[in-house]
């Protein structure tokens, strides 16, 4: 049943919904991206924006990612709130000079007199043979860098609320949209509320072990939790939501309570989320058990369905690992 106060939408619908709400409220917000007004562009996550607000506020641009981020930085310095949409996070590699050396640093360079309220949304093309160059979960490199915020929504509801916060933030925010979160639908309030950054969410209560997850790995962790519940393991699932700022307090308190931790990451293990969670915990207090890291293989994504299947974590394998590790 859909109540009048909510809409049942998928992730793309939720993003569009939040964007429209904010564009209505704040005329400084505008959106741009390569082919943004194409039918079905960005997995439908920009549908109808141009129709509603006109192409002046939702415009197509040439393929020039570095200049496009510069476009955002410059207009943000003038008080606007640009949203750049990138079809793949991999394509942001062309804009790293603007993102790392400029967007993240300009505030510091001016003694924090200037700010760069830019939002960058970037998709991860997980699955369907996208191969090495279209499936990168390249977000740790942003999370390493002070001056940026890195957001990894796990569902339509999360996508809407976190995007709203990004649009209102005075820092440059990278919102990572994993193809894995686009499938299901969820009820989203007609009037979206912003979700504060750096506040994790309990996605499932549990007592024996804590699963810290982000993005599409939240639903994966929930499925693992259901599966191991059958073997008597009660897993709590924490959606960390943002990799920077990270909710260190929740990480520490959950880890202290259960003493057993697994991290579910969309990326590679080295210098990634499990590492960061391990640091936060290790700086506070020792774990009772060894930490379990769940992540894609430490290799560049292969194309073949057979190899891809072995590249990403598999539900049964992980459930078994969890049981072996924590029971």
């Amino acid at each position, binding site marked *: 049943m859909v109540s009048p106060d909510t809409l049942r939408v998928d992730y793309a619908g939720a993003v569009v919904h939040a964007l429209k709400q904010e564009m209505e409220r704040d005329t400084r917000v505008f959106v741009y991206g390569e082919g943004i007004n194409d039918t079905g*562009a960005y997995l439908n996550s920009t549908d109808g924006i141009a129709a509603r607000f006109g192409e002046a506020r939702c415009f197509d641009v*040439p393929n020039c990612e570095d200049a496009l981020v510069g476009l955002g930085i410059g207009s943000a310095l003038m008080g606007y709130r640009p949203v750049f949409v990138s*079809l793949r996070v991999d*394509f942001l590699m062309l804009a790293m000079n603007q993102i790392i050396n400029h967007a993240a640093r300009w505030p510091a360079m001016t003694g924090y007199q200037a700010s760069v309220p830019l939002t960058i949304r970037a998709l991860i093309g997980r699955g369907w043979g996208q*191969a*090495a160059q279209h499936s990168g979960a390249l977000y740790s490199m942003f999370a390493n860098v002070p001056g940026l915020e890195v957001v990894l929504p796990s569902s339509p509801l999360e996508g809407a609320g976190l995007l709203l916060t990004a649009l209102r933030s005075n820092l440059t925010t990278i919102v990572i949209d994993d193809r894995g979160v686009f499938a299901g639908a969820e009820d989203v309030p007609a009037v979206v509320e912003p979700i504060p950054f750096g506040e994790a969410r309990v996605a499932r209560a549990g007592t024996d072990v804590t699963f810290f997850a982000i993005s599409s790995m939240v639903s994966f962790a929930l499925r693992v939790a259901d599966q191991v519940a059958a073997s008597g393991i009660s897993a709590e699932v924490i959606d960390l939501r943002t990799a920077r700022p990270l909710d260190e307090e929740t990480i520490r308190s959950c880890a202290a309570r259960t003493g057993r931790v697994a991290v579910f990451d969309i990326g590679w293990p080295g210098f990634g989320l499990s590492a960061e969670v391990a640091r936060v915990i290790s700086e506070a207090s020792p774990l009772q058990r060894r930490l379990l890291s769940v992540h894609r293989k430490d290799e560049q994504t292969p194309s073949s369905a057979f190899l891809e299947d072995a590249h990403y974590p598999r539900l049964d394998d992980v459930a078994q690992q969890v049981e072996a590790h924590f029971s």
Partner: protein
Amino acid sequence: MDVTAEVALECLERMVVIRAVEEGICAEYSNRNIRGPVHLSIGQEAMAVGVLNVCRPEDVAVSTHRDHAHYLAKGGSVGAMIDELYGLESGCSRGYGGSMHLFSGEANFMGASAVLPGSTPIAVGLGLGCKLDGRRAVAVGFSGDGASDEGSFFEALNLAAVLKLPVLFVCENNGLSTNTPLAARQAQTDISAKARAFGLVAANADAVDVFAVRRAAAEVLDHVRSTSQPAVLALTADRLCAHVGPVSTIDPIDTGAMLAEAANGATRDPIASCVGAILRDEPQLRGECIEILEGVPTRIAAEFRRANAAFEDRNAVAGLVAPPPPKSHTV
């Protein structure tokens, strides 16, 4: 036609191979055993074939997301490519690359990048390798018009010119990047004029006509090879298919229809155009043309059947369920 009958048929055959492979993809894709994004070159076959027909085997080439035609025109194995599409270990990239990353060491096809304009700077490095090798080989870097929106494209042109490297940059202008027209992306759309402003020699050709491409390519290649200076060849044609996905906007090859279309002076189909040119100048080659138009698709269909069966066998062990096809083919 300014080519021998042998060359003319060679060009036709190569284009039909490319078309037939891509028609095979269109035919097989809905079975969901080919699992990955595919960017077809239907309508653009003459670009790859015209250029690579006048290259030497030792010349090295590098390509983009739309790499099928380049791989095949450079001499990459048809079977190994089809295996690659099916994700088999026998694939030309051992199943790691897929449609966007074909590779053939033997054919000196060095690979393909699906991130703009990634292979263009790499072509410059290949050119440096050619120069250091001292074998007078040339590096050929294929790119689309969309890649020339990117700054690094011009870095590559300038760098090759400053270092005096034997690189032929082939810019395949189909007027579109995904579905955004060139004129909406570039304030000045003449890519050759830009190349000249950067100090490179540049030439244009209409790539509906494979022999026009071949002629223009021969000329710039000669310049590149003899002077060790880079050049740009800008080619125009229509993409007679969707940007991505198994969607052709023209019918599969049918010999009768093709022979009829060949007489159409305004055709935008480079294969029909090629057949037309051959039949106009060398009507006695009609039989050979028909043999190519009928024989090639048949042989290639057999390759698909073989690879599909191999996929099924492999999956009988792996037991993978195909995910729902992606909602949108956007890449």
